[in-house]
């Protein structure tokens, strides 16, 4: 029944330009993304990295699409031993303005069979994108400890 991909849609009261900045500016991501700073020069083909609060790079991949403020895509995989059977999967963000809202669609696909990335990102993205929505609408991110996340069924 389940396909090896994860899709998440949310609607945010903001502009596509502000949402684009929130998705690509490392200082901004650090505030809503469990302290993770995204690092890249955002040229297609360039390295894309997730830098944790302690300065360590936890995940890395490449920039695949950069078309502000409409489409952003990058691959990444966790670099730790636990994810050694995984491959860099492709996360694609589509931003569509609807009046004073933006519909954000994330499609994350291309996971290695039997890997651990898909279950991990399936619990991570709803928390990250909920916090992003709060940040843009109220100025405050959500305080969700990583330990409060859980694997589905």
């Amino acid at each position, binding site marked *: 029944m389940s396909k090896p991909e994860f899709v998440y849609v949310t609607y945010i009261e903001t502009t596509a330009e502000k949402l684009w900045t929130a998705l690509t500016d490392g200082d901004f991501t650090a505030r809503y993304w469990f302290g993770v700073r995204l690092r890249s020069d955002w040229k297609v083909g360039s390295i894309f990295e997730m830098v944790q609060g302690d300065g360590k790079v936890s995940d890395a991949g490449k920039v695949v699409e950069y078309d502000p403020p409409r489409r952003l895509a990058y691959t990444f995989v966790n670099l730790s031993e636990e994810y050694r059977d995984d491959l860099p999967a492709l996360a694609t963000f589509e931003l569509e303005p609807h009046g004073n809202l933006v519909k954000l669609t994330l499609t994350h696909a291309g996971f290695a069979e039997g890997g651990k990335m898909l279950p991990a990102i399936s619990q991570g993205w709803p928390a990250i994108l909920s916090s992003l929505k709060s940040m843009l609408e*109220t100025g405050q991110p959500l305080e*969700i400890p990583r330990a409060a996340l859980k694997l589905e069924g």
Partner: protein
Amino acid sequence: MIDIHNFTPATVYTIYIASTPDKIWQALTSAEFSRQYFSGFAVEADLKVGGAFIVRAPDGSRHIDGEVIACDPPRKLTVTWNVNWPGLVEKLGPTLVTYEIEPAGDAVRLTMIEAHDRALSEDILEGGRQGWPAILSSLKSLLETGHPLAMKMAPPQRMLAALKAMGIKTP
């Protein structure tokens, strides 16, 4: 009463909200709140197992006719969520919707699980996959900012076409 063990989740949507479980429970089960974030639709729930679960359209008609299957405020609510279009339940079977509400740090995790007792096409499932993110995004905004999203939803065209092809009359 239906046997919930025959149902398999088809769509799961999780959202985190800066609120309390009690407020989220109230938002999910009261007409006063639902009209604001659910395009004017009014939830009328008799919150006990076997109680009626109705969602009334803005014109007063019963859009959803269901029954409370499990009720554990403010943690879990399971209802049958049957759209009142002629022939729909006969052809698609009942729809089961479960809300789970759990504290997660300073926020609350709300998980919506839509389950069915038979395999349905991706086209049919598009209705819920398009609707739930919009409804629950607006519920989150309402609880966090005091106002819902100004949402103008396009109808789920693939689902409506698929229902029509099955001989189900849609509005």
